[in-house]
């Protein structure tokens, strides 16, 4: 017996590698459909994927891979962010120096920081484009309404992550951008000031105190931003991202038009194929799924097609961030100095459209308009419940025409309002208004300024479309397009055409030179 057990032991020893592999991957090589399905569903890391994926989903025009690229960027940000935490010291005295060290002497530190910076910008862009894609292909419609809301949360969290990260280098750029950004958060004071009740009721001031932990940006603010940036927001984003993915599965994959799946008649079903349907393992999901009422002819195993796409797009975004990182260093200006303001002091680029609006009215531009935009976006699936086909860009030809017209309208409107404001200023500076009523009360400016004019004009356009087309979907396309175009133009305008003292300049070369 002992001899036999010994032999068994030696044989076991010999077979350790194979048995280890088999116990880890409890299925054969993914050479058959069945094994491929198992590859996905039995792997912890892959099982958030469907085992089979619809061919329509894998078409480039369906998603342009924007969601995958956003996720890839988040992964890159997580990895590089954890690495940067090894050397970054979140304190006013040491933060700037530690970034200098990361740049100059930490092995691969410069590359990691640059990739982190570029990936962060990229993620903001991608998440916006992903949202636009989901909107224009009606992907928010029933049953995916709440997943759209989750997407909005992810959008806000992404902006929050990017903004909190902005302060951490503790240089002039960081300090003054966050000064602007946190003041936007405190803009309700404008309204309470107008009513003269700020002394007793100051929600704007409270928000700022909560954010900064003081009345200025210092040690407290840095620690708060750091905690938000490395822990609170990433955890929240990861959890919601998980739910976002999970709901895609539960909603039967990505939105696709009815035409993507020719309905299967009883005749078309061959007897031996019935068990196929268990492959989806989605007996309880709602709506159209490969498993319930569609044949699997239109689907492919997720392995390898979906994974190939994911890997390829991950490589694409990594490649882009690495190329940018090699040639363009993440900015690092002088050590933060509360005595010497940057001029112009600009918020991060994605808030620059807001900063332009804030230059008209802090409360309208900083709270009401962005509030309307975020809440309005979140409510789209609940306000537009028309039962029409999904997964079609602009819902067809009419929508395409309306999107084009709205783009033109949005361009004319935003450029017109900006040009008017630059050329003629606004109410408070017009002599004839002053002669007429004297000093314009601040509350009038708050209610009536270029920002509110734009919102009203866009709303009027949308209501017009609603009446002409008799379709909430078309009205939504009009409104969404107007705001998107306005966001792009405002951001461009505030980034490149606003100079010192927020004055208008055709190019940065015209900025007055300030020597020290």
């Amino acid at each position, binding site marked *: 017996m002992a001899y036999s057990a010994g032999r068994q032991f030696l044989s076991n020893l010999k077979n350790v590698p194979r048995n280890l592999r088999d116990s880890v991957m409890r299925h054969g090589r993914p050479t058959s459909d069945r094994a491929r399905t198992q590859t996905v569903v039995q792997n912890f890391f892959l099982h958030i994927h469907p085992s089979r994926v619809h061919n329509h989903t894998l078409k480039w025009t369906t998603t342009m891979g924007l969601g995958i690229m956003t996720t890839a960027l988040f992964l890159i940000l997580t990895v590089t962010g954890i690495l940067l935490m090894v050397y970054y010291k979140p304190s006013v005295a040491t933060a700037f120096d530690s970034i200098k060290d990361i740049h100059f002497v930490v092995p691969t530190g410069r590359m990691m920081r640059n990739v982190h910076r570029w990936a962060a910008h990229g993620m903001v862009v991608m998440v916006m484009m992903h949202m636009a894609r989901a909107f224009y292909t009606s992907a928010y419609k029933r049953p995916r309404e709440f997943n759209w809301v989750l997407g909005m949360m992810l959008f806000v969290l992404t902006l929050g992550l990017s903004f909190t990260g902005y302060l951490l280098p503790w240089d002039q750029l960081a300090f003054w951008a966050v000064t602007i950004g946190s003041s936007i958060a405190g803009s309700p004071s404008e309204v309470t000031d107008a009513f003269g009740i700020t002394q007793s009721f100051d929600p704007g001031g409270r928000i700022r105190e909560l954010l900064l932990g003081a009345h200025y940006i210092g040690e407290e603010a840095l620690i708060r931003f750091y905690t938000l940036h490395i822990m609170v927001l990433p955890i929240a984003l990861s959890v919601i991202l998980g739910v976002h993915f999970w709901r895609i599965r539960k909603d039967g994959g990505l939105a696709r038009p009815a035409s993507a799946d020719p309905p299967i008649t009883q005749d078309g079903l061959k007897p031996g194929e019935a068990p196929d349907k268990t492959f989806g393992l989605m007996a309880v999901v709602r709506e159209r799924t490969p498993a319930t009422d569609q044949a699997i002819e239109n689907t492919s195993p997720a392995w390898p097609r979906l994974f190939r796409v994911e890997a390829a797009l991950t490589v694409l975004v990594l490649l882009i961030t690495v190329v940018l990182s*090699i040639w363009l260093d993440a900015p690092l200006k002088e050590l933060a100095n509360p005595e010497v303001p940057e001029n112009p002091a600009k918020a991060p680029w994605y808030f620059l459209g807001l900063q332009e609006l804030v230059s008209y009215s802090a409360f309208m531009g900083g709270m009401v308009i962005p509030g309307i935009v975020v809440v309005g976006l979140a409510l789209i699936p609940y306000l537009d419940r028309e039962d029409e086909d999904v997964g079609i860009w602009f819902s067809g030809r009419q929508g395409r025409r309306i999107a084009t017209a709205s783009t033109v309208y949005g361009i004319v409107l935003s450029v017109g309002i900006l040009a008017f404001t630059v050329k003629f200023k606004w109410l408070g500076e017009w002599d004839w208004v002053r002669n007429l009523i004297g000093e314009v009360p601040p509350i009038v400016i708050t209610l009536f300024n270029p920002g509110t004019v734009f919102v009203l004009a866009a709303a009027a356009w949308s209501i017009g479309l609603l009446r002409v087309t008799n379709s909430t979907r078309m009205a939504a396309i009009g409104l969404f397009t107007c705001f998107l175009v306005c966001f792009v133009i405002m951001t461009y305008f505030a980034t490149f055409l606003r100079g010192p003292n927020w004055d208008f300049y055709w190019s940065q070369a015209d900025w007055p030179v300030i020597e020290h």
Partner: protein
Amino acid sequence: MKNAYDKTMTGLLLFGSLLTLALLAYAAYDENLGADWYHHQSDYRCQLFARAATDRERQTAERFDVRQKQLYLPALGRIDRCITCHVGVEDPSMKNAQQPLTSHPGDIMANHPKEQFGCTICHLGQGRANTETDAHGHVPHWPDPMLATEELDRSCAKCHTQGPLPGVPRYNEAIALFHEKACVSCHLLRGQGGDAGPEITNAAEVDHGDMPKKEWHFKHLKDPKSVVEASEMPDLNLSDEEATALTFLMMSLTGEPIPTEYLSNPKPKPIEMRMMDPMAAKGHVGSQVCIGCHQGLHPDAVDGWRKSPMSSTYERLKNEPTKDNCLACHTTGFNPETGHYSEEGVGCEGCHGPGAVAVKFVLAGQVDKHKEAIRLNPDSTLVCVRCHNPHVPVGVHANHYRKQPPRSGQAGG
């Protein structure tokens, strides 16, 4: 089943991965073997081996590691990585080598070992950087680029507050002028001096809008009102050369904290602490301020006071355990409630009364009021008998006060 989309993705995966791989490899090379400092250090190491004749020299060469080097200077709050490229600074045989391997000229490093002082305290520049352009600091967003060689003497004044020093005539001239014009009469410098004008501890850091700092200081010294309309500073009648010298000194006042052990003439701490108390100095400006003008007006009187026991009377008792009983008479501006005083010894204001108001008048050009504000009628003996008490003769009073219990709240005397 495989369609064009799959092929595109496979192609993207293949070429994207290979391209990224190549770029990462390039970045790794660029950061390590391709770095400038790596070439400089390899070059230096080769030269060490090439000239090594003895075993000991060979050992020195072998012990030279090619790696990033830095001077860790926690006392100065600096890390200087200059020696990552300038590896030959202390090697006399590199005297004729090209930069960056050349040895440091002069013998200044004998008194200023690099392990204690580093490089950027004198040369400025960006110590943490390890590439030439960044380290020399002539890059955007670095406020302190390296000083040109002819400007280097400016840095001496950071620690050498008194002068004179050998080999730096411009510094010596500037320091001498600074004392002659008694700038600290009105301007606070590192916790010493008057408060009639703005503090100058960090004069080189103060921003003057569009005007370059050097130009501003020169104009300001030549004619204060030309740059500050409401300036109360008197015209110092400086020649261009003198104004240039003082500008040079102003530009050295960076206000950066220098640890006491680095100062050439550290002031004793306890006095500084007391002078910092606003109550103690209230109304008092310190003899230095008066002397600023009166040394020139009637030097005999000032020198007479200097030689008299009045000026040094604090020295006699500074080691006494019960000296708190004596401060009322042996210091100037003593406040019995706080126990603080403005100056050790009996200075100008000990007899003439607090001078702050008087200084304001003289700055406003109202010499008559200045005289009025100085309280003393020279004939009055009241001021004298405050301390020179006839009942306690000079010879025995020390023993008298030593017997008193230590002062508690109220001053003796």
